[in-house]
């Protein structure tokens, strides 16, 4: 059986790749397209380290088949910063020391951006429940949630 | 004279002594003196961590001892994190 030829859009640019039918988007992003920022923590959709956006929806890329991205749009951590500027979410994560080992950080940043697109003014509880699908073992989530709420305020144009 | 304080488990190897005073400038000399005095103990403390006046050394062999140093032999201290 030959490979499938998939044409899609990744981080705003056209992309194409060959893949087997059974390969996950996570695997192809990392081993095929060379975008290593999306991380593998579990391959069962339980940890959120592989979070990406598919047609504007937050998904665990380990549970999406690469072939499913044909004709659709994918956004990964590599597309969050624009040009030479960090996204406010990235900046706030740094300012609040919201990362220690950093392995969950790409997934969390993608998920946070999805949260704030849906709900620009979340309460602490709303933020915690939205991000419950992103495991972090290092921080205990305190500084992450502070960074998220501060980024939300900044993106709303309020003083941080 | 360095003063060694033995744990309850170690006392069996030193004829029941709770403490001993031994003239030694370095831990290596202390060990040699102990092993000479108690042949059954020979080599048994080579891998022990050594607390000298409260500070625990994992590699203590050539650590100097003061005239009134208090010495304990104990398990290595490391960790996870």
């Amino acid at each position: 059986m030959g490979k499938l030829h998939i044409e899609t859009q990744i981080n705003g640019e056209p992309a194409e790749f060959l893949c087997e039918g059974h390969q996950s988007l996570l695997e192809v992003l990392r081993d095929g397209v060379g975008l290593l920022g999306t991380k593998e923590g579990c391959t069962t959709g339980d940890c959120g380290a592989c979070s990406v956006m598919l047609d504007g929806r937050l998904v665990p890329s380990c549970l999406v088949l690469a072939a499913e991205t044909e004709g659709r749009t994918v956004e990964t951590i590599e597309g969050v910063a624009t040009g030479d500027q960090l996204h406010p979410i990235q900046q706030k994560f740094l300012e609040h020391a919201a990362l220690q080992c950093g392995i969950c950080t790409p997934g969390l940043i993608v998920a946070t951006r999805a949260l704030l697109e849906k709900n620009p003014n979340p309460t602490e509880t709303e933020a915690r429940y939205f991000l419950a699908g992103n495991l972090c073992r290092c921080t205990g989530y305190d500084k992450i949630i502070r960074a998220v709420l501060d980024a939300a305020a900044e993106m709303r144009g309020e003083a941080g | 004279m360095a003063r060694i304080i033995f744990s309850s488990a170690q006392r069996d190897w030193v004829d029941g002594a709770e403490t001993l005073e031994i003239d030694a400038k370095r831990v290596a000399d202390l060990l040699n003196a102990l092993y000479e005095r108690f042949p059954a103990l020979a080599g048994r403390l080579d891998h022990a961590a050594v607390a000298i006046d409260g500070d625990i050394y994992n590699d203590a062999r050539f650590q100097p001892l003061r005239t009134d140093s208090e010495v304990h032999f104990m398990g290595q201290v490391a960790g996870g994190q």
Partner: protein
Amino acid sequence: MSKRKFKYVGTRPIRPDGVEKVTGRANYGADIMLPGMLHGAIARSEHAHARIVRIDTSAAEAMDGVRAVLTGADFPDIPNQWMGDDEGGIDFGAIAQNCMARDRVLYHGHALAAVAATTTAIAQEACRRIEVEYEVLPAVMDLDTALSPDATILHPEAHVRDGQPSNIATKIVYEGGELDDAFTQADVIVEREFKTPMVHQGYIEPHGCTVRFNEDGKYTIWCSTQGAFGVQMFAAMVLGLDPNLIKCVPTEIGGGFGGKTTIYLEPVAMLLARHTGRPVRMVMTREEVFRASGPTSGGQVRVKIGAKRDGTFVAGDCEITLEAGAFRGSPAGAAAMTALSSYRFPSYRIQSYDVVVNKPKVAAYRAPGAPISNFAVESCIDELSRELEIDPIELRLQNAVEEGDRAPYGPVFKQIGLRETLEQARAHPHYSAPLGENQGRGIACGFWFNAGLQSSAIVSVNADGSAIVRTGNPDIGGSRASMAIMVAEEIGIPVERVRPMVGDTESVGYTDLTGGSRVTFATGMAVIEASQKVVLQLRERAAIIWGVEVDDVRWEDGVAYGLNAAADQDPMPLHVVAPQLRTTGGPVVASAQVSPPAAGPGFATHICDIEVDPETGRSQVVRYTTVQDAGKAVHPSYVEGQMQGGAAQGIGWALNEEYVWDEDGKVENPGFLDYRMPVASDLPMIDTVIVEVPNPIHPYGVRGVGETPIVPPLATVANAMRSATGVRFEQLPMSPPRVLAATDETGS
């Protein structure tokens, strides 16, 4: 030293490696891709205990895309030899057999063959096609079974007790005073028995490595590890190689907590790379991480404490039994050392047993052993405070160790901060806040050592006046930022002008692991010393420029000031000196190496409010405060991060985490869905209070902070549950079914 006014120490600059990490550019253990790379996978035991009769790899070898298949027969035989003593040590034969079974498998998931293939999927399928004939042996799956008189003995030659082969690998005893006598003097005695489950460190990044073998016999290992020099040595011992042939490059590490201070995949990948002549990448699946990497011990702890009516502790008796897993090496020693050591017990006995069972070989987990014995002892102290009707903080203050008190494991404490953390906890608004319905509050104390061990550092100054600091410690929690701060402080340049780098085994001097709460403490000492040597060199350069002696130059805050013969010179900042390094003697480079003792343990007091739903048994931590003595917080945000992260792990251990075993000795929950770690919605903000009682042997007073935070939470949460439900939980985790069963029973 505590009076020193710091300019950069204690500030919160953005970490130097931050941008790479928030953009996904940082490379972790699974991110090293080399041309021509093959993918490795491991075939694992289907039984908890069995002799391997025969392995047939022919079907695997015949598959398209398979380039090599290895079994234990392809690995050198490394003899079992315990190097160390009762309280700690290592057996490289055991590590070798753990990486690849030889004639016996000792836990479900034990590696018994490996495949290298052109894709991971092919390698994994090939592993499934390897046929193994087992002679199944009785599995020893818990401590009671291991200790029963007719138990199957896992290692009959290795462990003999009272003349009989035994599953008890070692026994440790600490004793003092007159125990029996002391208990008769006690007015109140509390005696309980506790059980804790096997739990995993839970790092989100699975183990991963890429290995290249060069035709000249040298290996390069890229791997996620807490210590590259450790990987180099362990791999050399396990494969019978000269360590000089092995270069280990540590990638960024996605969590370790002690679990990445040993090796699993690396020697296997090395042999596959040598056999195929191609680089080989191996990454564990999450399931493999749970089945086959080292968790920490499950345990049983019996505690008996006697006290006077006025609250003075008179006697403490503690019996600890820990699971080592398949090979000797549970943290029985450290569990014993820390069990009673926060308080004065004039009479005490601590007995600790390391017991082998058919479970994965345990590995270090953040303050190994201490949370387990602490859970039991602090729960008993809580019961004592209820019986004596003395406030739990008052009772602890009354008995808390301080400078001059002797620890049960021998030495006398120097300056420590337990008392200060208790006082700050008592004064904290959390402690006196009103509780709501179905809520309870608990407190507990704990500590961990900070290891010394060996570190080296190199600091150099560039012509533009910026600096570089090189150490060998993988950055697991923000340590690069702290190294940069220390160099900045000593030399007197802004933190942003210091670039810290983490070296491999060929680019930096030997350094012991990132772990043991030692990096800011011990490696920091090397960094400070190297920086001070740099300052001396800068003074010498200024002296040359001014034509005076070095004693005529003072260096402060990045500026050279003239004294004596040079008193009339204008102050000369570094950016004026630096371009002149060329003409005044060349580059400015200094190195330092240290091997300090473990000193100045860091104590903590935690407070937890918990709310229990009586219908479902589900509990929610509604407020949590940690108070910890950090000696001197170099970068307070990362100290707070350690306090919060350790507390979260402890909360998970207390409330939800446990390995669940089926009757065949197989883990039933090898994934994050059913191995339930805390998620963002489980926790509140975690309040942190940093106390600073300086560590007498560190130039800034730094104490290690990384491990102490996981020690008190198990008991803190259990004591809160006691307060909320009226039930003393003697078994962890306090998951909803257990809470319901216990509260239904008591009618609470």
